[in-house]
């Protein structure tokens, strides 16, 4: 009884409402044509823009499912996604047509046999075009621009290994296979220079530089002098690529420019972002604390106030420097209470640059790279957006 009532009553309402709708529709204004049928399709990416950005989401609570989210800084839309597995290394190819992702997969999600692999994604279609299986020794570390590197002539990829013994694998991009391995004497990361040279940072503050031949094998190696003090003021591994090589930055805010354009690495005089007064305690920090506009020479650094052990802390200000004069030209506040603290910064390399900032509350901020004006704040950019890569 009760059961029947519950079922019947809505049906009666439905009938009378349907009739009412029909009647009111019949007496309304001239009837527009029905909407045409739509066709299911697949979106094609437009021509790449320098204002696109890959936002790397480590997905720290579900770390086997990290991804690169491609985002348009002008339209404020996600454009697509490249799955990047577990603790990946990544780098766009020199010609920009390919995103190489070195990562780890398991036969059973997060268990069972695992495979290290470099996957190649066509950046115009976001489809995977091929892969190279690696030895299961790939370095699994934080995101940097230097976990893997294309040789400058795009023929090889250098991929860092850590077991914890450190070595380098050389992948022939055309043949799609590992063609060589060499020991790096404990030095890590892959910073490419010249045609086919790769440099690594050593525990004593030196650079190891290894030159490979056209089969990918080592033909020469050399160690530089130490260029920073590992014990007292180490450099972050999240250096910024520069026109001549890379700009390193230390925990205490000292810039170490490294020139890799010659036969031997050259180190310009270090200069500091902060003055010596310890009362300030402004320091760089985060997961990608610096970004460099290569042609304008503008350096952006995420800065916070804190002491020893705060080098991963997000910033409350972006400090802007002219790398030619070493002068600070601006301090742009980030509102940590509103947007979170600034973990990663990246700047587009065109002449109307956008500054991209991700925070520890997963917000992506877009600032005018010249004025610091906040143009857009995009919330919910994944779980843990810890790195930003220009296309």
């Amino acid at each position: 009884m009760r059961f029947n009532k519950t079922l019947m009553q809505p049906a009666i309402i439905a009938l009378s409402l349907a009739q009412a709708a029909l009647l009111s529709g019949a007496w309304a204004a001239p009837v527009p044509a029905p909407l045409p049928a739509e066709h299911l399709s697949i979106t094609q990416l437009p021509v790449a823009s320098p204002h696109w950005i890959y936002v790397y989401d480590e997905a720290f609570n579900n770390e086997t499912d990290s991804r690169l989210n491609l985002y348009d800084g002008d339209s404020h839309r996600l454009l697509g996604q490249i799955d990047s597995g577990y603790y990946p290394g990544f780098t766009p190819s020199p010609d920009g047509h390919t995103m190489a992702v070195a990562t780890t997969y398991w036969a059973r999600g997060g268990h069972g046999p695992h495979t290290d692999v470099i996957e190649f994604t066509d950046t115009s279609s976001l489809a995977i075009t091929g892969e190279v299986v690696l030895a299961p020794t790939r370095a699994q570390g934080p995101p940097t621009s230097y976990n893997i590197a294309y040789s400058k002539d795009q023929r090889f990829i250098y991929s860092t290994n850590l077991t914890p013994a450190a070595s380098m694998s050389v992948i022939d991009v055309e043949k799609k296979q590992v063609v060589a391995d060499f020991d790096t004497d404990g030095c890590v990361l892959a910073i490419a220079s010249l045609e086919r040279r790769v440099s690594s940072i050593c525990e004593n503050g030196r650079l190891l530089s290894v030159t490979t031949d056209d089969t990918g094998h080592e033909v020469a190696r050399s160690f530089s002098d130490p260029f920073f003090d590992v014990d007292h003021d180490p450099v972050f591994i999240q250096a910024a690529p520069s026109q001549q090589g890379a700009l390193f930055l230390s925990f205490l805010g000292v810039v170490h420019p490294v020139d890799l354009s010659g036969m031997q690495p050259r180190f310009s005089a270090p200069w500091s972002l902060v003055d010596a007064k310890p009362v300030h305690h402004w320091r760089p920090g985060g997961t990608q604390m610096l970004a460099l506009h290569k042609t304008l020479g503008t350096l952006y650094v995420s800065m916070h106030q804190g002491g020893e052990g705060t080098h991963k802390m997000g910033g409350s200000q972006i400090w802007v420097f002219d790398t030619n004069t070493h002068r600070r030209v601006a301090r742009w506040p980030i509102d940590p209470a509103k947007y979170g603290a600034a973990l990663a910064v990246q700047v587009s390399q065109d002449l109307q640059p956008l500054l991209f900032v991700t925070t520890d509350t997963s917000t992506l901020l877009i600032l005018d790279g010249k004025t610091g004006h906040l143009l857009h704040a995009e919330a919910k950019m994944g779980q843990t957006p810890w790195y930003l890569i220009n296309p």
Partner: protein
Amino acid sequence: MQQRIDRLLERASRRVAQRTSRRGFLGLFGAALTGATLLPLLPVSRGGQALAEPTSPKVPASPTASDDPVSCDYWKYCAIDGFLCACCGGSSSSCPPGTTPSPITWIGTCHNPGDGRDYIVSYNDCCGKTSCGACSCNRNEGEKPMYRLSLNNDANWCMANDNPNYHCSVSVLLGVAGQ
């Protein structure tokens, strides 16, 4: 009456599914869903059920929101469950780059406040990449449990794709309901 015909046709296609190879069936069903001429093959519309109780709090309230394909309130999304492809690099009817549309779908009937018509909508999943994660949207007007599969939005509709990994969902207008 239409309901009964659609039900019969749905059963027929399911029988085809059971009797043919998985891939052969997909080719057939996929073709049916992309060709407008095969509209009568679609399963029962949701219009009747959607009207059965008019007080749904999920019915789009604002006319502004209801035309925005990145809003869960968009009228075409009346029975969608998942991430809106319009927030993931696609559009309301287009899969993001590098993903593959599902050839099989669930079906809804949604009321367009713009012209007062009910439209049949095919909800396709886009497949082959892991969860998009943006614009999660769960609306269930006329949605039924999994034993009424063609009206169910919980099943993974990427199930029949080469890669059954669910990425996001689109809504594709097929035509006016009841025509």
